């Protein structure tokens, strides 16, 4: 394709966009709506995934030692765990039974002390372990349970970590499936709308074929238009989505401040989402128009 042809194609494409204003508006609005829905689902799933990710990372394995185990032995167990699983551990804390009692009394001041004190302390020493990958909880738990100094280990099912990990896996796999499915639906919807704009101009395509235009020449302006529809739709849909989302985050911050920390809000993350939507809009516009115009180019 020479420079003159490219120039002609660009001029024709912009003229077609202007002339077919209503169809252009329909295609752009449709792309915007589809990409808004796709983006909203992706954002909701991303938030849910991030929430489960944070929660599972914050969960700790709690190892309660037998009441008669001295603090030195608890320290010995801590260093054994550290030696064996050090590379898997993000953080560990050994809480002496005196501190556990103190915290209990502070937490429940209304409960009469009932003689609770150094001599009458019902709590054992407690070792809390936070893993880099929460999925590894079974390994550490099984090791601790087998130790004779340990009375009880709470993790996984007992501490609610297992269902959380399940939810995290589900949001990861389900999210990919759902977003792929929605993405496919979006592609078909955008492609169908572009097909309508092409159908409205099938006469023009027929004339182009008649006077000897190559398929590549005929296809090119439609691809440009598809890219325009998809990208502009993504810009509008993405802007509406981010506008709405930032308002929602502000509302959450004011109404339920504790919940704010779970939400995705950094400029980087929202930038990735916006950029992703624009890339999808551009790509879907291109693929959609390619699919649609190819149907009209079928000839013997």
């Amino acid at each position: 394709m020479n420079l003159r042809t490219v120039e002609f194609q660009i001029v024709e494409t912009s003229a077609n966009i202007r002339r077919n204003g209503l169809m252009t508006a329909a295609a752009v609005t449709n792309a915007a709506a589809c990409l808004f829905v796709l983006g909203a689902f992706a954002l909701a799933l991303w938030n849910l995934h991030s929430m489960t990710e944070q929660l599972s990372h914050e969960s700790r394995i709690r190892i309660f030692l037998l009441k008669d185990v001295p603090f030195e032995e608890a320290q010995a167990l801590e260093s054994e765990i550290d030696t064996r699983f050090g590379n898997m551990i993000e953080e560990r804390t050994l809480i002496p039974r005196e501190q556990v009692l103190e915290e209990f009394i502070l937490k429940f001041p209304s409960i009469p002390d009932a003689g609770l004190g150094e001599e009458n302390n019902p709590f054992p020493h407690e070792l809390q372990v936070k893993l880099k990958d929460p999925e590894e909880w079974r390994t550490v738990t099984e090791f601790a349970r087998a130790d004779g100094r340990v009375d009880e280990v709470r993790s996984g099912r007992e501490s609610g970590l297992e269902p959380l990990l399940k939810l995290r896996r589900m949001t990861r796999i389900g999210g990919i499936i759902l977003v792929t499915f929605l993405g496919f639906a979006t592609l078909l919807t955008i492609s169908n709308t572009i097909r309508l704009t092409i159908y409205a101009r099938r006469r023009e395509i027929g004339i182009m074929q008649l006077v000897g235009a190559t398929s590549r020449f005929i296809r090119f302006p439609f691809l440009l238009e598809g890219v325009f529809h998809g990208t502009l739709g993504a810009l509008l849909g993405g802007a509406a989505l981010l506008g709405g989302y930032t308002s929602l985050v502000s509302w959450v911050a004011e109404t339920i401040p504790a919940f704010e920390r779970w939400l995705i809000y950094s400029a980087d993350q929202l930038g990735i989402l916006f950029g992703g939507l624009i890339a999808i809009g551009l790509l879907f516009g291109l693929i959609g128009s390619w699919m649609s115009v190819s149907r009209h180019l079928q000839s013997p």
Partner: protein
Amino acid sequence: MIEFDDVCLRYPNGTQALDHVSTTIEKGEFCFLVGASGMGKSSLLKLVYREETPSAGRVIVNGTDVAALPKRHVPLLRRRIGVVFQDFRLLSKKTAAENVGYALDVIGVPRREKHRRVPKALELVDLLHKADAYPDELSGGEQQRVSMARALVNNPPILLADEPTGNLDPDASWNIVQLLSKINITGTTVVVATHDRDIVNRMARRVVTLSEGRIVADRQRASYDVGEADSPGDPMTRREEVSP
């Protein structure tokens, strides 16, 4: 120039449009294809510019078997053939000059060359003064002349016209056929599918008569009702195979 060699055309719905058609149209010839609607005139033309491919037989255009032409070469074939239709097929949002120039734009002709050729083509059809008019500002005859200018702007050696006078009054029809004749004098092979009896009779050129997908008559300097004197009955249904 154009040779149909035992050509059959059956559409996917089962309609047999052409049934063992063989004929040759020589370079620089002016030929009418006549016959009632649905007898295969348009199908025959479609085979020449590869809108359709034959179910059997060969269509040779300028020595090339059109049916065997790779798909990517079809546009090159069409650049060597001008086609005019009953419904003009003009782009309503482009002026007469833009419609004619469009045929050059799509094949990448340089702008300077385009600006030289478009007025020439419009002058040939006597419409230079309406270069800036849009199709809906032109009469039917004028629109058909724009369509002819577009078909001719590439200087094709072959011009096909499918019912070019179908939507025109008798005067406008006669003007169009006169114009086709003028184009033919310059050496262009002209094939006109029509059922306009008056035009065919007045022109007295070669007439190929089709009926039910077969050539039933083929005469030089003939009239629409050629062969009528030979045997009674409807000439459109008479089975009179004639060698070209």
